């Protein structure tokens, strides 16, 4: 019971209270760039979830077993970017060879997010959340869960905003607000709405 409760807290925190796009403001570029259409928004988010999970799965052990024991924490950013970029390339090749259908679905989005700040952000936040006193297995599981939640939160924000934008398209906006300005204002309003989730998760599991 305690275990399930912990999992729910981590997931809901990542999805709602600490939504990557709308409260942490990471990954704004794909958020504004790919949210015009619902299907491309879903495709992009699927790719982000996928990359976030495998990136965490690789960078977390690297930090715990390689960087931390040698006191090289300051190399975190450098090594993580290197590893994530190479990893995504590798995964793309593997997908192309063995799962052409999945490769076609994630297609153009995979290389786009190799150096996305949301992906790097999730790996670094996992490190921030890491508690050396907990056994590696549990903390690794928590980190993976957090990255799944972050990806799902990304997807939620993208899908919500794709809906908002399709409404915006059919509205008559004043000329000076057309295009990017009204999109940014709409994004800000959606973001304000998400700020409301601030204390919800802690309150839910009291």
């Amino acid at each position: 019971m305690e275990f399930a409760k912990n999992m729910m807290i981590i997931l809901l925190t990542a999805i709602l209270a600490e939504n990557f796009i709308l409260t942490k403001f990471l990954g704004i570029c794909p958020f504004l760039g790919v949210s015009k259409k619902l299907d491309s928004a879903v495709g992009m988010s699927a790719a982000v979830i996928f990359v976030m999970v495998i990136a965490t799965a690789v960078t977390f052990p690297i930090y715990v077993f390689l960087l931390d024991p040698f006191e090289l924490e300051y190399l975190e950013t450098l090594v993580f970017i290197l590893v994530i970029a190479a990893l995504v390339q590798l995964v793309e090749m593997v997908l192309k060879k063995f799962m052409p259908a999945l490769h076609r679905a994630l297609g153009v989005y995979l290389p786009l997010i190799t150096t996305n700040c949301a992906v790097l952000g999730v790996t670094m936040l996992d490190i921030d959340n890491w508690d050396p006193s907990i056994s590696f297995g549990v903390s690794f599981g928590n980190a993976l869960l957090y990255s799944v939640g972050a990806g799902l939160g990304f997807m939620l924000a993208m899908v919500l905003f794709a809906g908002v934008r399709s409404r915006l398209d059919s509205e008559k906006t004043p000329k000076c607000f057309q295009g990017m300005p009204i999109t940014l204002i709409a994004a800000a309003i959606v973001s304000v709405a998400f700020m409301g989730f601030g204390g919800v998760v802690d309150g839910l599991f009291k």
Partner: protein
Amino acid sequence: MFEAYIFPILLVTGCGLLLSAILVIAAKFMAVKTDETYELVRAQLPGVNCGACGYAGCDDYAKALCNGAKTNLCIPGGDSVSAAVSKVLGVEAADVEEQFAIVKCGGNCDATDYIMDYQGVKTCAACNSFYQGRVSCSHACLGFGDCVLACKYDAIHIMNGIAVVDKSKCVGCGMCARECPNHLIDIIPTTSKVYVSCSSHDKGAQTRRVCKDGCIGCRKCEKACPSGAISVTDNLAHIDPQKCTNCGICAVECPTGAIKVYPI
């Protein structure tokens, strides 16, 4: 010294080298063979993914071309693309029958009226689903320009309430025809000059009541046509482009002006 400076440098360099080595090896072993002719053929196609060739897009058509599909199916590309593709594939070039779009409705703001002050979503598809559209004729062009949005060549515009095709820009891909909720747009060969600018199957009296420009099915054109290219079925004239000689007699005979000669 070693701990503080050299080890980190070695570590990062080592990581980089290791990863690049893995990528190189992976690229070797995981390489997926792409057909070289496919890439070359694909590069020749225009890439608008209109589907006029009958395939799902340019990628799909290029694949089919490698497997022996006809080279003259790309209508936006025309003869030049057909020739280029044939050259790559080493087959004889075939002529493309060039086509363009016509809007089979002449019900502009002078000829017909709106029967409602439509305030809903401003697309033809939405308007058409609301009591068959805002125009008094239920087969009319709704004038919201779903076709204009679909066109990649800026060849169709709303003028005086109806869609009008700019023949000099139209390549005949048919993307607008697929968007029109009333199926008013037809793709005909560029050699055709005469067409019926009405799609109403209503009885003549009804058509006359709602539109000055509609085809009333009087069969005058059918009788006047010297080459027997016109047939009137369901109160609507139809011109067979194969038989039509573009003489234009029908357009002169037509009492409502529903048959038009290009350029108008």
